[in-house]
Every structure is written in C-alpha cells, then in structure tokens.
C-alpha cells in the first residue's frame, strides 16, 4: 500500500522534559519520525516543551512549538494549525496520554483530527490493565493472577484474592511510576492507597508476585497489511521485580530454547493483533517461571518505548522511523532496510553479537534516598555495549558507564561483607557482589538462587571471578581494555549480506569489517550515558555539530555509548562507533581513523577528561585552557592575574588547611572540588561542624585534585553566560538571569533571556571579561561562565571552556544554530566572518527544570550548589509572566488559583515577603503561615491563619495531605537542617503542591500566577517567534 494522500499535515507530540522513566529515547523517536514524515512529503507540526532536544530544532518540522504539553495548549495548537492527523505513539506515555485526553474532550472529533498509529480503543486495551487481561485471555496467553481495584471499598476482597506478596500497578503511568511491591501484610493497605493516588484514573491492578521469574521483552512492528515482525528479543539479567529500565538487559535472548522463544514470539504477535495496534512499534513483556517454564504476559506498550530505542540501536532496525512510515500507510515490504540497502524492512534482524544494556543511577547525588531497586524505575540513564560475547559486552558496558569501572572490577570489594543480603537485595552493585561471592567460593547454583539471576549468566560471571591466564582468552572476555581490537559492523543480518551503513563496534576478534573512510574527517566525542548534569543537551549539540560538518563537506564520525540518543542513529553521522568514551576506546578509534581533528567541547565533561590522552589534533579550545579553568586553584590565580573579580577563597589539600581557610573567610563558605560537573559534592557550609562533616566527602569527589573554599555570596543574583570565541574575540550568545539566587546550581535554576536586571554596562563588562579570558586561554568555539551579582558588583564564579547545557535552549530561543557557528570557528573561521545577532529579543524565553524528587523517596527536596534536576523545559511569551507560566506548566506544576498559600520564610526574607503576600491575596489565595511569618504579614494588614505545630491535626503536612494547600513558599535558613521544614517540603512534593524555596522564585511564580488569572495563553511556533527578531545590519 502506498503512503496515504488523504492526509497532508501531521502533528507529532514529543515527551517533554527528561525525567526518570522518560528520557531522551523519545528525542530519538520524535526526530526519526519527523524526518521520515518530511521525507514522505507531509507537513509536520511538532510540539515538545523540551528545548534540549534535536526534535525541536526548527529546521526539522514545518512548525515547531515549544509549549507546555497540556491538553489545553495542545488543543490550542490543533485549533491554530488544523492538522489532518495526530501521531501520538512516538512521544512516550506523555504523548499517548495527551492524545487520550484530547479524544475525551471531543477535540479530535470536533476538528476531525485522525489518530495515527494506534486508535483510542487500542490505547485503552493496552493501557488499561483490566482490558488488557481480557485481550490476553482471548488469544490464550496467560496473565498473572490479579485483582482490578477501582474503588477502595474492594480492599479486603483484593487482599483475600491475591494475598501478599503482591505487586501494585497504577493504570496509565510510565516507567513504573507508583508501582510497588508489597512483601509485608501490614504494608498492603497504605501501599494500595498510594497506588490509587498515583494513577490518573485512580485504578490499580493488584497482581500475584512473580518475583524471581525470568523477564523478557519483545519489540514488535506491525503494518496495515497485518505483517508483523519481532525486531529484537531482550532478556533481563535481573529477574522480575526490578523494573526493566533498571535491569541489566541482554539482547538477543540467551537462555530460551527455540521452542519457548517461538511460543513467546507468537504470543506477542497475537496479543498486539488483539489489542488492535494497527501500525508501528510495540513493546511487550513476559515473565517465565525458571523452574517449569510457565509463561505469562505482563504488559504491552502500544507505542515506541525506551526498549524500542535500545532495540533499534542493538539491531540497526530504525523502529521509530519505520513506525512513522507505517503510520501513514506504507507496509513493511515496501520499505527498504537502509543498512543493507537491498533488502526490505519486513524481516527480523539476526545478531551475531551480544548487546548488554546497563542502567546508570544517581544515588550518590541523593544521599537520603533508598538504594534498592524495585518495580518503579530509578535510573537516570543507560549505556549499551556490543561485543561478540556476553562477557565482552558486559565488561565494555561497565567501562561505558563512565563511573570509573574497569569492567566488573574490584571497586566494591570493600563493601562485600559475605552476607546473603548483598545478593538477594537488588542494588546497582549487585552484579559485583555476585562476582565477589563466586570469588570467595560460593557455588554458581547458590549465587543464582540468592540473586535470582539465571545460572547461565552466573556461570559467565564465574569465569570473570576466576579469570584465565591465556592472553587471548582474557581479551575475548573483555579483561584487557588496551587489547588491539577490530571493528565489526552492525549489519542486521549476521553477515549474510554486505552492510552499507557504517555502524561499528569493537571486538577482540581477529578480523573486522572496517574499511577506510575517504575525505576530510572529524571525530566528535559525545557524552555517554545520561546522568544528572549531563544529559540530552550535550547529545543535541553533538548532533548539531555532525550536521554542520556534513553540510560543510566534511565527514563526521561520532562516538557514543548511549542507546537513547539521536547521535547514535546510524544516519546522523558519516560513521558511528557505538563505543565507550574512554581513553583506550577513543585512542583506538583515532588510530584507525586518523581524523584531521577531534571535537571535545560539545560532549560535556566526558570528552574533556580525555583531552590529554588523544593522539589527534583537538579542534577548538586546547587542553591547557581546560586545565586552567577546571582546576579551581589555577583558575583563582588566573583571575587574579587578569584582574577579574571573583569571590574570596582559598585552597585546601587536607582538612586542617580547610579549617584555616574557612575561618579566615568567615562562614558561610562553599566547598568546591575541582574537575567535577554539575557541582558534584559541592556544599554550603554554615559552621565548623558542617566542615568536619562534608570536607572528606568533597576530598573524595576531587579524586586527588585540590578542593577550593569560597566565600559564599549570600543573596546574589546568578547569571549564566554563553559565548562564542575565536581565540581573539568573543561574542555573547546569551545572558541568562537565574530565577533562583546564587547557591542554587545553575543547572537547577530557572532562568530567562533577555536580561532584565542587568545593566547594559554590566553586560558589556561580562563580554569584556570573557574576551580577556578567551584571549589568554586561546578559547575557540563555545564557552560558558557564571557570575554572582550583588548590586553593581559582578563576581565571576566559574568559566567553562566548553559548550554548556544551556546552548540548545539558546539555539531554540534565538533560532540560530550557535553550534554550527562554533564548528565554523573550530574549523578556523573568525567571528567577524559570521553573521551578527542581537542579544535583545522582542519576547521572553524561560527555562525551568524538572526534579526527580517523586521517584526517590526519602529525599529532602531542597536545591543547592549540587545539581539534581534531570531535565528542562522552555516557555516563550511576549511577557515574562506568560513565559514563566508556560515553563511552570511544562515542568509539571499544577497551577491553581484561589486555594490556600502556605508561607514560611527565614528572617532575612520576612520583609520582602509582604508584597508577595498582598499579590497572592489579590489572586484569591488565603494565606497560611508559621508564627513569625504570620506576624510580619499581619502587621502589614493581611489576614493570615497561623498553621498548627508539627503533630497538631491542622499542621501543614496534614493539611497538604488533605489537599487543602495549593502553594508552598518555604525559604530555608540555618533551619535548612531542621527536620520539620524538610518534612513540609517532602510532603509538598508527594502531594504535588507547587513548592517554591527562594524568594526570587516566588516573585516569578506570583508574576506567572497573575498572568494565569488574565486568561488563556497564546501559542506560537518557534518559526513565528524567530521571525519577530530584529534583523541586525551587517
């Protein structure tokens, strides 16, 4: 069937900010879809609130909306654009839920917008756990015993029918949001109540526990003609009970016989048919009883998922691209497999290698959070490794994590105490403990019983625990990272046909598929697995650079190990190496390719760390500049030499020195280890006790480098600045004023352009500072700096001689590809050769962040100098209030006027809170406050109710739980460490009440609320906004 000609314009919905459970895999899928639809001649309208994505690059779609992903806003876009169809299956659960909401509102019908990919009935059948079970029954596939609870009255009945242990799964959530495991009878009731709250529909499936069963996933593609193929089979190394997103997973399936696998394959196809997913990619999960082989189906996702991204990268089958093509009527046999160039897409890839995915966690950032894996996802990123054998891939995977592992090494030896718990409790380190246990003589069988990990995998670990002497064998097991490797092709067909697409992985195999690439070549090092502080924004820039290089006639070679990304799509670069970004791995690639240069400055901290070890010319800023700024000590010297104003500080190499420095400076001081990203282990110290407690921690994070102590600038405005430099000149590309004060990491702070508080003089001063620095350091390409501003005084906080995470946001706000310009500079052009731009925009663009509090129970949701956010959104509007309101909505805040606002601020903020209180009252809020705050508010004539003390029935937490509070403003002081303030904030997060912890934040929030009160927001595409920019005469 040819493509449909009755539709012309298609709306694609993205998945919004990166959160735990929904990461950049949907940038990959949205980008592929947009490109595929454009290539077929459709007009593409795209909406996503996340500016740090490639899919929102305004050249990709005909109209690109960076707007909040709420039903109201998407409805406004539909009314404005009047597309013929909506494709909701490529933007994760967010997009699917929005499509359902719009259908329910009747908007789709009213505007005759057709749903492509999956119809409402299919979405319901797959998402509604009850309907899904009926589908399973119809096609004779078993499901776990279960009880569907849509009313809390059924609690007792459910307890009787299913019993404990059981698993609770709220309907319509993603990444296992709210899923929980009940192992103790007394947990049953509270857990069920929680789960009911977590489901948007208040419905929960209570299921027989399949803990310890084997878990599998299949990725299915189906077309209109009912052709169905399984793109990839995935086996979880961690047994059921650990969310697949948090499991180490392996492709293809390793421990099923063909007979069992084919039963599963058939079941998958039958289920997808019954659910009625007409076209596109689906993900379906199974559990298998390891003792008897009984197979049950756990769930199906009628959309492209995180696992689809993994499957695409693992096999070379571009699931999202093809899903988009199928959605507009093409069939699988009509589509060509790009990799072979000669075979159709209606096939099942055959792998002659093993793929291992390893999740990356961020527990070190959240000291209070419970470090135990379960059915609800907690990882913030993942890495994938390809090897010819399982061990080769596994070892490479651990290296790719960029946590300093040399494979499954002995790093955690000291934590292994021989207790069985280390194996029975799933943690990120469990596999290490299994190895240590085997080393200490535990039998494979015992280790397998305790961990629930299949004996086949444990046996492999046993080989690692008792490694052979033979060097060849060691190499093949991935024990020798410096071994000479060959590059093999990911070819979809196990070598049966020659591959055309150069997608490579390394192996200690005796020969490879590699052939030289002709032309001028540049290698771009990307940023590896997502982590807090280094996420999709860096991948976005690497993709922009690859595109820029290729547009300038050069060959771009990408290196990355993150399967969720756009950069690891085989058609983004001229050549892709799916490899760890480590010294040995990169050295080997450079030796092969002999490129004319390497670009390091776009991949965040990961490539910078390698700067001294690369035997190839580095394009742009040289390693010396990196050292001069990364070492906090050298940076302080440099600033002094250049006469730049920085906060007073001193250096410590041990705690004794630290004590002296801190006393000289006077508290509060800020601890800052060198060579870290996103403020790792940075801490504000209020007194000596703090110093004793936190210094050792910072010392460890600095990994042998020195630790700096700075005078902490209180009540300072923070400004983030990005600029382009050509070695002699500098031009600012964005001066972003933070919403939160200095002391809150720049990555966690909301910020806005164009500047409103800074004077033209100050901006000129900043540009001059950076020019001085850039000249001194020879910075070529992108650079970033942060300033603290107190009154007219500017304090330079730090300089990064590389692209920062805000660059993609600036690109989207300005409509200028600053990364491409940086590439020009790196290739030797001068700033004076580039077209000019004006920093003043005729509109406002706010960036707001998304924090993972809800996922990580036990945390005090408080911001500080260490970054904690996972993602970001942008809001654009003609006025600041509107732009911030959009940003708030986009980051998931529930904006509601006229409820109760709870205010509790520290003494310094008491006076400034009065005008805010007045504005809130005007907006219809009733004020609640703690004693001191209430006093101040009352004195200025406001009516305030004093809230009860902790433990009293009308205490803030109790009232929040009862849904009586709709805004919390709590600025912590020394009381930061007082438990009750922390508890209030945690409760706010748990109850999804907007929480503001700084006065600056509150100002902006009130401004946004005032905008909200004035009526609906207007939507405008980036292309429209960009046309409003004033052209600058050359």
């Amino acid at each position: 069937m040819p493509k449909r000609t009755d539709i012309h314009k298609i709306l694609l919905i993205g998945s919004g900010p990166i959160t735990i459970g929904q990461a950049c895999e949907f940038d990959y899928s949205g980008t592929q879809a947009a490109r595929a639809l454009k290539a077929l001649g459709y007009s593409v309208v795209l909406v996503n609130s996340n500016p740090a994505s490639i899919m929102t690059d305004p050249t990709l779609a005909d109209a690109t909306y960076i707007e909040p992903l709420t039903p109201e806003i998407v409805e406004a876009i539909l009314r404005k654009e009047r597309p013929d169809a909506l494709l909701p299956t490529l933007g994760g659960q967010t997009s699917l839920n929005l499509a359902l909401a719009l259908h329910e509102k009747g908007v789709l019908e009213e505007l005759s917008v057709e749903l492509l990919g999956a119809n409402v009935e299919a979405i319901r059948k797959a998402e509604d756990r009850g309907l899904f079970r009926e589908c399973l029954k119809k096609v004779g596939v078993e499901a776990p015993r279960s009880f569907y609870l849509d009313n809390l009255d059924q609690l007792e009945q459910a307890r009787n029918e299913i019993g404990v242990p059981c698993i609770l799964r709220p309907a319509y959530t993603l990444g296992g949001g709210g899923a929980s495991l009940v192992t103790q009878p007394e947990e049953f009731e509270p857990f069920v109540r929680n789960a009911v709250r977590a489901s948007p529909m208040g419905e929960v499936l209570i299921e027989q526990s399949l803990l310890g069963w084997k878990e599998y996933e299949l990725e299915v593609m189906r077309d209109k003609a009912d052709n169905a193929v399984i793109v990839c089979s995935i086996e979880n190394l961690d047994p059921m009970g650990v969310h697949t997103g948090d499991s180490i997973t392996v492709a293809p399936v390793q421990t099923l016989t063909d007979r069992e696998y084919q039963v599963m394959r058939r079941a998958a196809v039958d289920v997808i048919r019954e659910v009625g997913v007409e076209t596109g990619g689906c993900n379906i999960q199974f559990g298998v009883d390891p003792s008897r082989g009984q197979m049950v189906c756990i769930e199906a996702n009628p959309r492209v998922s995180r696992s689809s991204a993994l499957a695409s990268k693992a096999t070379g089958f571009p699931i999202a691209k093809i899903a988009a093509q199928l959605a507009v009527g093409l069939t699988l046999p009509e589509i060509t497999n790009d990799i072979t160039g000669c075979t159709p897409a209606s096939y099942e890839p055959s792998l002659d290698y093993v793929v291992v995915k390893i999740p990356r966690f961020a527990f070190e950032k959240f000291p209070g959070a419970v470090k135990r894996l379960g059915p609800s996802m907690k990882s913030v990123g993942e890495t994938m490794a390809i090897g010819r054998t399982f061990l080769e891939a596994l070892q490479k995977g651990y290296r790719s994590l960029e946590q300093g592992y040399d494979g499954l090494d002995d790093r955690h030896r000291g934590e292994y105490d021989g207790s069985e718990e280390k194996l029975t409790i799933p943690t990120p380190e469990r596999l290490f403990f299994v190895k240590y246990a085997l080393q200490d003589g535990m039998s494979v069988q015992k280790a397998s019983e305790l961990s629930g990990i299949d004996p086949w995998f444990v046996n492999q670990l046993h080989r690692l625990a008792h490694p052979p002497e033979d060097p060849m064998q060691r190499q093949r097991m991935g024990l020798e990272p410096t071994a000479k490797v060959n590059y093999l092709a990911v070819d979809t067909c196990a070598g049966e046909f020659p591959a055309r697409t150069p997608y490579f992985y390394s192996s200690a195999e005796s020969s490879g598929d590699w052939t030289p690439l002709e032309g001028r070549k540049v290698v771009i090092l990307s940023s590896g697995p997502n982590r807090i502080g280094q996420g999709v924004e860096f991948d976005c820039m690497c993709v922009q650079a690859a595109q820029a290089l290729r547009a300038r006639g050069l060959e771009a070679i990408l290196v990355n190990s993150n399967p969720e990304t756009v950069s690891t799509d085989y058609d983004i670069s001229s050549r892709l190496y799916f490899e760890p970004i480590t010294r040995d791995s990169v050295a080997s690639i450079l030796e092969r390719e002999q490129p004319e240069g390497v670009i390091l400055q776009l991949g965040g901290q990961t490539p910078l760390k390698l700067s001294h070890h690369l035997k190839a010319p580095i394009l742009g800023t040289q390693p010396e500049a990196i050292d001069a700024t990364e070492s906090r000590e050298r940076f302080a010297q440099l600033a002094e030499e250049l006469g730049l104003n920085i906060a007073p500080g001193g250096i410590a190499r041990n705690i004794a020195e630290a004590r002296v420095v801190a006393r000289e400076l006077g508290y509060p001081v800020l601890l800052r280890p060198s060579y870290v990203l996103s403020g790792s282990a940075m801490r504000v110290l209020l007194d000596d006790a703090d110093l004793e407690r936190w210094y050792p921690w910072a010392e460890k994070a600095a990994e042998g480098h020195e630790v700096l102590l700075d005078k902490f600038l209180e009540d300072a405005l923070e400004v983030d600045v990005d600029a382009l430099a050509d070695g002699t000149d500098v031009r600012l590309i964005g001066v972003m004023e933070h919403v939160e004060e200095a002391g809150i990491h720049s990555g966690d702070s909301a910020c806005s352009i164009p500047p409103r508080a800074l004077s033209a003089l100050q901006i000129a001063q900043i540009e001059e500072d950076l020019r001085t620095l850039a000249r001194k350091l020879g910075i070529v390409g992108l650079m970033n700096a942060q300033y603290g501003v107190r009154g007219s005084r500017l304090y330079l906080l730090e300089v990064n001689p590389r692209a920062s995470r805000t660059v993609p946001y600036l690109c989207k706000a300005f409509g200028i590809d600053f990364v491409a310009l940086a590439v020009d500079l790196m290739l030797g052009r001068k700033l004076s050769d580039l077209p000019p731009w004006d920093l003043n925009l005729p509109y406002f663009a706010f960036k707001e962040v998304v924090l993972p509090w809800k996922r990580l129970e036990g945390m005090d949701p408080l911001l500080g100098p260490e970054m904690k956010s996972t993602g970001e959104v942008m809001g654009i509007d003609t006025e600041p209030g509107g732009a911030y309101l959009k940003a708030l909505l986009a980051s998931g805040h529930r904006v509601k006027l006229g409820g109760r606002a709870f205010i509790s601020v520290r003494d310094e903020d008491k006076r400034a809170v009065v005008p805010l209180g007045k504005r809130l009252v005007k907006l219809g809020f009733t004020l609640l406050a703690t004693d001191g705050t209430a006093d101040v508010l009352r004195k200025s004539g406001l009516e305030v109710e004093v809230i009860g003390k902790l433990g009293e029935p009308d205490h803030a937490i109790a009232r929040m739980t009862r849904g009586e509070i709709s805004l919390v403003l709590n600025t912590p002081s020394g009381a930061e460490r007082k438990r009750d303030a922390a508890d209030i904030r945690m409760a706010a997060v748990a109850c999804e009440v907007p929480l503001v912890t700084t006065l600056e934040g509150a100002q902006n929030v009130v401004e946004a609320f005032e905008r909200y009160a004035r009526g609906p927001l207007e939507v405008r595409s980036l292309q429209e906004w960009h046309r409003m920019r004033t052209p600058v005469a050359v």
Partner: protein
Amino acid sequence: MNKGVLLLEDGTRFEGELFGHPGPAFGEIVFNTSMSGYEEILTDPSYRRQVVVFTNPQMGNYGITLEDGESRRPWVEGVIVREQSPSPSNWRSRLSLRKYLEEHRVAGLAEVDTRALVRHIRDHGAQRCAIGPAGQDLMEALKAQPSMVGLGLAEEVTCEQPWRMGKGPHRVAVLDLGVKMGILKELASRDLELEIYPAGTKAEAILSTRPHGLVLSNGPGDPSALTHIIPEVKKLVESGLPTLAICLGHQLTALSLGARTFKLKFGHRGGNHPVSCSHTGKVEISSHNHGFAVDPDSLPPELEATHTDLYDGCLEGFRHRTLPVQCVQYHPESSPGPRDSLYLFDWLKEQLHAQTH
C-alpha cells in the same frame, strides 16, 4: 585445550579449539543465522554431509533437551561456533552441547572468528571443508571428498521401513527424503494418520494403499541427482491427491514437471527471511535451509509461483494450476524458526476434507 583447525577447499584456514569429537570430519561448509534452535538444526537430516557454522556467537546456552530434535541423532558432520557454553541452563536441559557432540562423535570447533568465516563463505561460496586437530594435513583427504553438486543423499537419511504415526480420519502418505520430526508433528497434530515411506519406495506401492493425501518431505543433497526418485514423484504428484511438498520435495516436484534446479552460492539457512505469499498477500518470516533452488524461469506453464523470498527474489513456493499441489522451498513447520507459515498444513487438511466431502 585441544587446538583444532578448519580447512576450506580454497586453502583458507581458521583456528579454534576442538570440542566434541576431534575429527577429522569432512563436509560442505554452510552457515546458519538462526539465533536459537541449534538442537533442531543439528538433528535435521537435511544437514547430512554438511558442517554448520552458527553465526550466533553464544552456543549451547540451554544445552540439549533431547525433546526438540528433528530426528533421533545429529546429522551434521561438524559444528563451528564462536563460544560454546560450558554449563547450560534451562529447566528442560538434559546435557551439554559438548557432551552431546562427544556422544554422537560429531566434530566441534569453538573459539573461531565465525564472522570472518561467514564473510568468507558469503564472498566465496559454500565449499568442501575439513575439521581436525591443528597439526594434521587435511587437504588431501578433503580433496577426496565428493562435492555437494551431483550428490544424492536422501537414501542415506531416510527410514528403513515404512512406519506409522498419528490417528485421524484421513491418511496421508509421507515420502521420507529425510523428514524432520517437526513436519510429522504438525501433520499429526491436525488429526492425520501418517504413513511414512522410505525414499526409494515406488509411487505405485504408495498409491496402492489409497492414501487421502501426500507429503513430500525435506531432505539433503542435490535434488537433480535423485534421478530414480524424480519419476516416482511425478507419478505421485499427478495422482491428483492433495499434496504438500517441502524443501527437497518441492525441488523434486519441480524437476519432475520439467523445471530446473541450481545451486545457490551459499544458500539460505536461518530463521529470518521474509517470504511474500501471493495467496495471503502477506509476508511470512520464515525458516530456511536450502542450498539449491528452483529456477523460476524454468517453471512449466502448469505451475504458478506463489512464494518469493524478498531478500534475493529466490522462488520459495509454487502450486499446480489444476491439481491440489502446493510446494514450498522453506520450512512451514519451522523448528527452528518463526511459526508464521503453519497455514500450509491447514491448507492440506482443508484439501483432504474437501476431497472426501
């Protein structure tokens, strides 16, 4: 560790470690791209006189079940793998791959760069090969082995005596040219009574038992070498009985009606080839194992192509325009492989039903 070597007819050598029987073993080297199902492959009689390279690098993971075999013994001459699993894991596993090969004196070579080997076979074609201990000179013995072209092998693997299997209202005669258990099981599970005949059985002998339908099975070797069987197949096919022919049976049917067969460069062996079917208009992901194929341009007018391989355009099935005869080159019974094509067995059953009602 026993060092071993694989020697190809063109002189190329691959080193590895012997497991199973140390050899020397000889055969035609072929590769299979299935990611599971090695037990079925080893025991499939169609692999007679062949050495199989598995592209899947981790082999033997689930051991040998002794339940999933396609016959009672392995037929391959040798097995070449990247890595063989020392200790299998599966609730049905009975013994390890290594043990199984040892017991049946089948040569195995592990730790081989199988991807390089596959690339070589892909570029230079299937050819004779030998597996043996590293020091041994195998070339002379290799050269003494027959080539696959011109080699009739069905009688080396067929049953000795006619036998029966299954129960049901319809009787189907199966000409065993090396039949896989998978085919018999699919038929029997459709309530058919099977009478299985040795490859050399005359058509008259079969037809005189008045079966309701016929199945011509898969099998090894060069179809055109089976000159004494081809005329018998012609008689069977033209008897007018509903007939399903698979693989070698498909090739013999084509030959008997005047078409030609030829040897493919390296054949089709795996579980992922898309085959489009003109009856259903759909694509089946199918299980393949064939080194020869029917030349579609040579089909006589009474035959109509029905199935085509979308990878290389290879003819994968045809039917008779006037008689109830359906032939497929690939394996609708899968084992191993995707079970997308079972409708062909249903077709036979429907034909039988139609004939008797």
